[in-house]
């Protein structure tokens, strides 16, 4: 009898982890509907999805990093996106979309590689390394803009970020496309197996001849590329780059979304499915802040508190006395 109950509990826990964020989405939509009729409607949902897409893309990259190891996390996601916003705006004045995108992705790749090497080769704790590289990225952004606002979004970018094809937000299609591609990498390639193994038990992975270093570096690189790409969507949405830290506020929600979406912060377990729900939930929450006219300052406070709450439920040290 006891074993049956345990089995039931375990299945529920596993499925539950992924269902939880979607459940939250439903609840939040219902709450929103109560305060603002039309909230829980298809058109509004499409709007939410449009807003959520860039964050969702950053969360995919973050998932790779968090999966890869015990302490691994990427605090430079927002910085990458921020740099992209100003850099792309600048480049698009002179170059084509194709070249601009290539350059943006290259920058993301380089910053990701930098993170990966700093963490896995030199041995700097991920939090410190990615925090420092975020400072560098902001610094580059600051140097480029020199306090001015250069360039704007282009019609193509704006379409990507805000437009619709047959009623479906383009941003959503892009987001889902990236999720599918990433899911293939995660579940269908040998690298994906390596990633899960490295996050589960780096010693065992090393014993099996797999390089934890390579696994980690690639994960950070993927995160760098994806968060840079997300910046393009942000530029499309915001239209004008006002400042070199525009996407800074998205770093924490990105990390929270991954944890809330069921990926184990200590690595080795998790995926993208849950993150779809948690990104939506966080975006809806953010829109609540807008509806209730909550100031930027209070929002920051609430995000901070939200992180603490998420940690209480998802990331706790084991007891000393077991």
């Amino acid at each position: 009898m006891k074993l049956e109950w345990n089995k039931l509990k375990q299945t529920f826990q596993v499925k539950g982890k992924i269902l939880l964020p979607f459940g939250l989405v439903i609840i939040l939509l219902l709450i929103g509907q109560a305060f603002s009729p039309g909230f829980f409607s298809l058109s509004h949902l499409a709007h939410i999805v449009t807003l959520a897409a860039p964050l969702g893309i950053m969360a995919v990259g973050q998932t790779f990093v968090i999966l890869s190891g015990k302490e691994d996390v990427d605090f430079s996601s927002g910085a990458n996106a921020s740099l992209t916003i100003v850099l792309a705006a600048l480049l698009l004045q002179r170059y084509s979309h194709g070249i601009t995108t290539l350059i943006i992705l290259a920058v993301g790749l380089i910053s990701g590689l930098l993170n990966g090497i700093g963490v896995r080769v030199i041995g700097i704790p991920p939090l410190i390394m990615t925090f420092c590289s975020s400072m560098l990225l902001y610094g580059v952004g600051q140097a480029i803009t020199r306090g001015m606002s250069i360039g704007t979004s282009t019609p193509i970018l704006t379409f990507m970020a805000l437009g619709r094809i047959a009623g479906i937000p383009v941003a959503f299609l892009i987001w889902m496309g990236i999720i599918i591609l990433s899911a293939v990498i995660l579940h269908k390639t040998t690298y994906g197996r390596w990633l899960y193994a490295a996050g589960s038990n780096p010693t065992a992975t090393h014993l099996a001849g797999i390089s934890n270093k390579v696994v980690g570096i690639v994960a950070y690189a993927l995160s760098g590329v994806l968060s840079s790409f997300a910046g393009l969507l942000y530029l499309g949405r915001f239209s004008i780059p006002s400042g070199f830290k525009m996407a800074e506020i998205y770093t924490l929600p990105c990390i929270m979304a991954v944890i809330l979406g069921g990926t184990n912060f200590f690595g080795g377990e998790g995926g993208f499915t849950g993150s779809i729900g948690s990104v939506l939930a966080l975006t809806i929450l953010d829109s609540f802040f807008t509806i209730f006219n909550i100031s930027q300052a209070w929002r920051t406070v609430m995000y901070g508190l939200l992180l603490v709450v998420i940690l209480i439920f998802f990331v706790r040290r084991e007891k000393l006395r077991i």
Partner: protein
Amino acid sequence: MSGVRKQVLQILPGLLFLVLISLISGILMPRFVRLLPSSLLLAIPTAFLGFAESLVMIAGEVDLSLTGSLVLINAISISAYTDYHINEFLFVVIPLVTGLIIGAIHGLLVAFGRLNSFLVTAGTSFAWSGLALVILRQPRGKVPLWFNEVFSIGKVLGVPLAVLFIVIAALFWLLFSVSPLALKSYAVGSSPKATFSFGIDVNRIKFYAFVLNGFLVGIAGLIMTGIIGSGDPRLGGFSTVLAVLAALIGGATFAGGTGNGLGAFLAAIGLQFTRNLIAWVGVAHYHLDLFYGAALLVLIAGIAYLRRSREIGME
């Protein structure tokens, strides 16, 4: 190796670093010596942050909320005086108490809540800086006259403020390092399970580490408020990273169990001087943060790499 000699050896890296940077600054910057009293004073808040961070890292945790805490302490102090007109002689108490409370909250979350310290403090950093913004809304406010006077003159009873604070820090470290709490903190950071088996309440020690940390952050906030003479909710910059780096130079590691508050204090002053140096070298304002960030990263990488090779060598 006696206790005194051990202390001196631990403080040495930070001290040497400070001396090195000072020498370079002295050679390259003609007005370095003349400006020393004020540049030293400006560096003191960060120095206390480095000290504070050391305490927490010794116990095996990390505090990334320093920037946010500092800003909040400043905001609360200014607001208490400007908006609520508290007794101006109580003014000095506010930052210290706020710091203690912040430290206690972190302590509760990390020690008793068993939450991951770097994520939690990263989160609270946002919460604190947000609160600061809510309280102040924009740079404003004033401090009590006598308080302002002290900082404008820069001396108390003929002693330069910076020197006074350095002495206070040294005394604080001295008192701490000989206390039973210090030994337990090192033990907790080094081997929490073994320390637990000795019958020591590991959680309580970590809690105390955060409370002390909060108190020191309070001091930093007090001094900073005195320096700028008003409230500024947009303060930020590299405080947290500087503090962590300073703690690292002072001998702390992320694994815990080592570190020296006074060494970190001195190292932090050196790091601030480094920034002045970079600024003076002629780097444009817009490039300053980039170069400084890069410099800090190089330092961190260097320390991490050296530590790593030493560890691997010992294998």
